[in-house]
């Protein structure tokens, strides 16, 4: 039973991280209809920024996380302004190639500064909680709590504030949003900023129980794509539910089936689902 609960905790942890990354991806897709292949690079740079703040500047974990979120939000805005904005009228294939260009650039840049080595990031939450044999590391608990708080805060922002409502409006209908006088540039920049900040926070949360290295974004971004396809591209609840599905599938699949192949589970699931339902599991209508 404890072993089972242990996997539930693992699934929740993974699902929280994947959900946060997928949220950023799905927000950008919902607004701009760009599959942002560079999102994984933002995640990776976020981890390195936190690492830089903590190790080189000696800043506290929370401050490092906030600083990294700010830097990546800015980076997201720069990408939007310099790359995606000029391409808004191009054929869709160009956005994708440009996003790949950003991804390659950021990865090579980080590798030039920090090298390709694996680094360990410390965290003040190193304790372990023991509930009657069920062992929960504090960092994992922090990840789960932080993810829930963030998702809740994002929902509040989107539903209850005017600025949030403009993002929703844009996602629902571009033309409609223009008609009521919503500034598309502002919304686009804001969406990229939120998406980048979410990626940076997710990376900083996950890095202490994983490692920091230039290729760390690859798997995460691909899984995030699987998630938003599962949940319907552009859907916020879909990203969270999809994140949990993949997180649990990996935790249980890795434990009960095979550790070596646990990374394939997500992609196998995607291939299976898209073979049966080419429009995704929860997709409604055209997006």
């Amino acid at each position: 039973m404890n072993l089972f609960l242990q996997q539930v905790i693992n699934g929740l942890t993974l699902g929280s991280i994947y959900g946060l990354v997928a949220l950023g991806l799905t927000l950008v897709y919902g607004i701009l209809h760009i599959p942002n292949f560079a999102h994984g690079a933002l995640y990776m740079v976020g981890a390195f920024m936190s690492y830089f703040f903590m190790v080189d500047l000696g800043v506290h974990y929370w401050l490092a996380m906030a600083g990294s979120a700010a830097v990546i939000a800015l980076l997201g805005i720069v990408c939007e302004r310099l790359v995606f904005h000029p391409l808004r009228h191009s054929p869709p294939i160009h956005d994708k190639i440009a996003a790949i260009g950003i991804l390659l650039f950021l990865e090579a840049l980080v590798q030039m500064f920090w090298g390709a080595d694996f680094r360990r990031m410390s965290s003040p939450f190193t304790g372990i909680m023991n509930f009657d044999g069920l062992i929960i590391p504090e960092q994992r608990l922090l990840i789960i709590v932080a993810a829930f708080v963030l998702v809740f805060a994002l929902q509040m922002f989107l539903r209850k504030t005017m600025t949030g409502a403009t993002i929703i409006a844009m996602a629902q209908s571009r033309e409609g949003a223009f008609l009521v006088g919503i500034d598309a540039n502002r919304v686009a920049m804001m969406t990229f900023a939120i998406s980048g900040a979410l990626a940076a926070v997710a990376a900083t949360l996950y890095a202490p129980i994983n490692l920091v290295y230039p290729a760390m974004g690859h798997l995460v971004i691909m899984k995030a794509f699987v998630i938003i396809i599962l949940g319907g591209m552009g859907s916020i609840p879909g990203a969270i539910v999809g994140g949990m599905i993949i997180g649990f599938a990996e935790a249980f699949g890795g434990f009960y089936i095979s550790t070596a192949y646990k990374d394939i589970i997500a992609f196998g699931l995607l291939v299976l689902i898209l073979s049966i339902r080419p429009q995704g599991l929860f997709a409604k209508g055209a997006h």
Partner: protein
Amino acid sequence: MLFKLGAMLMTPGAKLALLVFAIVFPFLASNEYQVYVMASAFVWAIAVYGLNIITGFCGQLNLAHGGFFAIGAYTLGLLTADAGWSFWPAFVAALVVTAVLGFFVGIVSLRLKEHYFAIFTLCVGFIIYLLIDKWEELTHGPIGVRDIAEPYGFGLVDFTETTPFYYLVLAFLVFAIWFMGRLSRSLLGRTFIAIRNGDELAQSLGINLMRNKVLAFVLSTTYAGLAGALYAGMVRFIGPEEANIVHTFDMITYLLVGGIGTITGPLLGTVGIVWITQSLQFLEEYRMIIFGPLLVLLVIFFPRGITGSFLTWMHRKAQSVAPEKKRTESKVTTTRTREAENNA
């Protein structure tokens, strides 16, 4: 005048000159290494031509292309090193395997459109990489495959030396380009372009989308398999890194720099960039610092690459030279440019 000059560059004469240059290159090269680099550039160019069929002509961004390259290389490698086949039967098998796998991946993935297709193939590429890396009983995992058979020659020619192998690759490249040229002028090639320009319109013209897209996909994976098999025969040691997504991104860069959807573009882009990265050795590891922004700048400012931009420029020249002349003539020029583009 200028237009004619430009058209001449794309004429059989210019192509013949390129071919002659390629044939005499081993005699001009100062050492064997340069011949080797050129041969490897040609191998990549073959793969890029494959990518050009599905992405350039048919408009579907296939991010699993590097994976099929690796499948071609591994099929040849495993059949010769482990199963004891000799080179040429394994070579043919590599083509068959990539074509068959391409067919099955194609019928599943091509039901998806645009973004979904790109993301799906990205995942397929990654599955291929993971399988090669983890399935140790079959692929030897991270250790890679050693002792791949040499491409033995027929009669007098021996392909195990660098220079004869160079000619072997060149022959395949010439065939690949010739086939591509035939394809682009055929009804099939025009069907692919129609699908790229608008699949709903193409469908309303009575084009069977699925059948044509799958055909384009199988052709492209076969090209990738051909390149992969040649690569395995050339380096004779392969590892899971051949399936790394970076190779797919490299190929997209070559294709974009040269000119997506053109005939000479993939060759110019691949050979040009391979030589630039070779001459700037320090770039090898950090080449993406330049390639990344280059990709972005290209899609923003020169989405049609070297060949495409050149053709557009020629087209503009031709139109500005004769604006006062009758419209009919400019129409003739337009069609001529189109034809030149198709032949480019």
